[in-house]
């Protein structure tokens, strides 16, 4: 057996984005010993890239806002598939979590009265997103990081966890390797919190980084936990599409929140033609009304450019199909005709910079070309809405890795708030769980050995598969089989192709040593990405309707029957099993909120 180091903590948090940092801070506050592990350096997680803002019904920018309306918007945005309890807790607790960040040093943009400013975003009834220009995530992660390093948390950077360890039915820790040396390390812990983020690397065009290989979801799955809603992948409508180098890089929804409009090649504001019935009552139906809204008229309804992401992404795709796309197959996003140049540079500095530097486009005088990009996964680890515990004892999850809050489609800004609200809860309950256990768990050498062998396999044998080629092929399979618009035949073919890829992955071969070897790192992570890809395709094949982020051209409508169930995936007897589980019933007082009269 390969050597390994051992580190011991009461609670191990895997992932140091917003969710992981917030969980670690809370667990530490509970007085237990906490370790925080991440694949990259501290402060480089996806959270750092978030742009537009964090949603919280502070009611500073518009005093008509409150948690009830935030709850309603979240449920409607999620096409009612959300876990109602999570949506409720999230809407209720987000304001306090945002205010707390101020106490830790965050500096959000201000209103003239000195309180936190809030911006409009898709699907949010009122201006609700606290923000810092278009670099909110940076502010958030740095604040949590600078607060967190003084809370006695032990941080383990550039360490990839490859397997969870169990003692019987319970979590006993995790095993990983240092990316620098390739040496293994076992974390013995009473509780583990997974905050590993999403799965965007399953698609070629994505706003996500190399880290997003679905590690947390796959680790939990292999440890026996349930995953839910895996068919729901969010394609953000506005990614950069030209030049090729920048394909997929995100253009924040804040552009539209601040007034940007979508146009087709004929210069038409096509979104007026795609207003779903559910949102008709609160969406402007003329350009005149939309213009009044932009000027701050509280009686005007919101422009259709700010419909939820699933709607906008599909609309762009339809325009392109109808031959009205932009030169590189997308739509035009135009903010220059809506706002003065200096306001654009001030509110959207990083968009200005990004287009200028990477795309040779000056957004204060030219339109941006945008198209859908794989952005976020609504599905993930199934958790208890209050404690964030998964279906495996001692295993918790929060942030993008967990599921439930967003249902079939996430509203912009609801992720950063999700990280704070449920990161805190996960940390708190993981610490409580750990405190209730007097003795530390036992590490099973057999499990350690097996994990090591699997991770080292790419160095041995005479396989011929290159990890980078496998990754590219996987992305092609997913884009063709389980992309923005799906159908039965493509999904079936996709699942077949995935099986072949899994077989090819057994022959993956890496060159060089274990010393900081990205080829090896991909080879290891690919195993997880294949598992989550299979889960996405399997759930998508079996949900015979369209809802939120899941669009079936062979089943274009939403079906009431399907509104009642979540897809649940689990590993049993070496097979991926799918079950459709009934959604928990919502109490009547919350149901009543969903039909709040306009302007309530």
């Amino acid at each position, binding site marked *: 057996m390969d050597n390994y180091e051992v580190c011991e903590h009461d609670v191990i948090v895997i992932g140091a984005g917003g969710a992981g940092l917030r969980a670690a801070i809370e667990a530490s506050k509970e007085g237990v010993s906490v370790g925080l592990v991440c694949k*990259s350096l501290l*402060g480089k997680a996806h959270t*750092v890239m978030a742009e537009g803002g964090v949603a919280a019904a502070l009611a500073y920018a518009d005093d008509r806002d409150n948690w009830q309306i935030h709850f309603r918007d979240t449920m409607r945005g999620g096409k009612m598939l959300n876990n109602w309890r999570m949506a409720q807790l999230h809407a209720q607790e987000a304001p306090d979590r945002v205010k707390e960040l101020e*106490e830790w*040093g965050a500096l959000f943009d201000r209103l003239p009265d000195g309180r936190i400013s809030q911006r409009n975003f898709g699907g949010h009834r009122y201006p609700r997103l606290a923000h810092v220009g278009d670099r909110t995530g940076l502010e958030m992660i740095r604040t949590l990081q600078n607060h967190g390093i003084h809370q006695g948390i032990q941080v383990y950077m550039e360490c990839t966890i490859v397997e969870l360890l169990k003692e019987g039915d319970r979590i006993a820790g995790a095993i990983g390797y240092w990316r*620098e040396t390739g040496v293994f390390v076992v974390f013995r812990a009473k509780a583990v919190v997974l905050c590993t983020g999403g799965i965007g690397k399953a698609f070629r065009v994505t706003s996500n980084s190399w880290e997003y290989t679905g590690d947390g979801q796959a680790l939990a799955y292999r440890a026996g936990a349930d995953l839910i809603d895996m068919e729901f992948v969010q394609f953000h409508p506005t990614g950069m599409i030209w030049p090729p*180098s920048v394909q997929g890089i995100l253009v924040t929804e804040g552009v539209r929140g601040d007034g940007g409009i979508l146009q087709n090649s004929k210069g038409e504001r096509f979104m007026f033609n795609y207003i779903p019935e559910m949102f008709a009552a609160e969406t402007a139906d003329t350009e005149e009304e939309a213009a009044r809204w932009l000027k701050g008229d509280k009686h005007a309804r919101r422009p259709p450019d700010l419909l939820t992401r699933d709607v906008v992404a599909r609309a762009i795709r339809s325009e392109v199909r109808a031959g009205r796309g932009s030169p590189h197959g997308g739509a035009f996003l135009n903010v220059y005709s809506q706002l003065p140049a200096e306001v654009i540079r001030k509110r959207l500095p990083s968009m200005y910079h990004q287009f200028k530097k990477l795309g040779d486009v000056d957004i204060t005088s030219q339109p941006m070309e945008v198209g859908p990009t794989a952005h976020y996964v609504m599905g993930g680890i199934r958790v208890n809405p209050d404690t964030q515990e998964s279906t495996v004892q001692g295993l918790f999850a929060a942030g993008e890795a967990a599921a439930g809050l967003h249902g079939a489609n996430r509203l912009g800004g609801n992720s950063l708030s999700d990280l704070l609200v449920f990161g805190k809860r996960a940390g708190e309950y993981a610490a409580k769980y750990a405190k209730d256990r007097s003795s530390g768990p036992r590490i099973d050498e057999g499990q350690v050995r097996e994990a090591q062998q699997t991770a080292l396999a790419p160095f041995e044998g005479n396989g011929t598969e*290159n990890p980078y080629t496998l990754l590219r092929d996987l992305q092609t399979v997913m884009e063709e089989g389980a992309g923005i618009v799906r159908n039965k035949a493509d999904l079936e073919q996709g699942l077949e192709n995935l099986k072949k890829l899994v077989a090819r992955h057994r022959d993956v071969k890496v060159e060089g040593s274990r010393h*900081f070897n990205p080829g090896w790192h991909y080879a290891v992570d690919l195993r997880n990405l294949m598992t989550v890809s299979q889960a996405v395709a399997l759930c998508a094949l079996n949900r015979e309707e369209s809802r939120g982020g899941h669009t079936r051209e062979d089943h274009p409508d939403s079906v009431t029957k399907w509104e009642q169930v979540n897809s649940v995936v689990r590993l049993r007897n070496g097979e991926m099993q799918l079950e459709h589980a009934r959604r928990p019933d919502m109490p009547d007082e919350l149901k009543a909120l969903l039909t709040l009269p306009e302007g309530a």
Partner: protein
Amino acid sequence: MADARLKVFRGTIEGGALKDYQVPVFEGMVVLDAIHHIQAHDAPDLACRWNCKAGKCGSCSAEVNGKPSLMCMTRMDSLPAGRPIVVEPMRRFPLIRDLVTDVSWNYEINKRIKPFKPKPREADGTYRMQQMDVERIQEFHKCIECFLCQDTCHVLRDHRRYEFAGPRFMIRLATLAMHPLDTENRLREIKDQFGVGYCNITKCCTEVCPEDIHITDNAIIPLKERVAGEFYDPLAWLWRLVRGKKADQRSEVH
């Protein structure tokens, strides 16, 4: 389009050399794309860091043709054509492998800075601040911790004066010092422990900062002034002199 030639440093602390690679060029390509191409086709074990590929995370720092840069924001067409592009790791930090260096020293410094200590909230539970006042610090909060300024600063790079926390942490200290809500005093540490006096205002850090933070003018000089004001340090007078002569300082140091 024609292929580009790159010379990429390959090696470890024990030794290494520039290695030649050839990559096809496409429109809008950045240096990080070239590195990714090399990984996928020629050298799967070529070590480099990256995450966002959009200048937001500060992971992909390296020296491109000798200049500390973010690889993801350096367009190939901004570099002289017809000459190989030289990509090397940041020189200031101990090498791990290829383009990856050990930047942990920065994290250690950060831990030594006394945390933010806010004043109490207003009676209505809010904090009220004017946009104008927060903007000054928001400039510093743009820092993506790429550590390119740390790589560049001659105090750290050539003179290896680790008593100096470096420009990145001068920024962080200035942020705290100017934060409208903070109540902590860190001036003694800024002087003694973090060595603000070592900076001789060459502004080389400011020049490489991908976030265009005016590190020297807006952060370090005000810190120096505050320290001078607090301690009536005779050195203060000296650096005022130095500051007057920054033009020749530059040519002297670099």
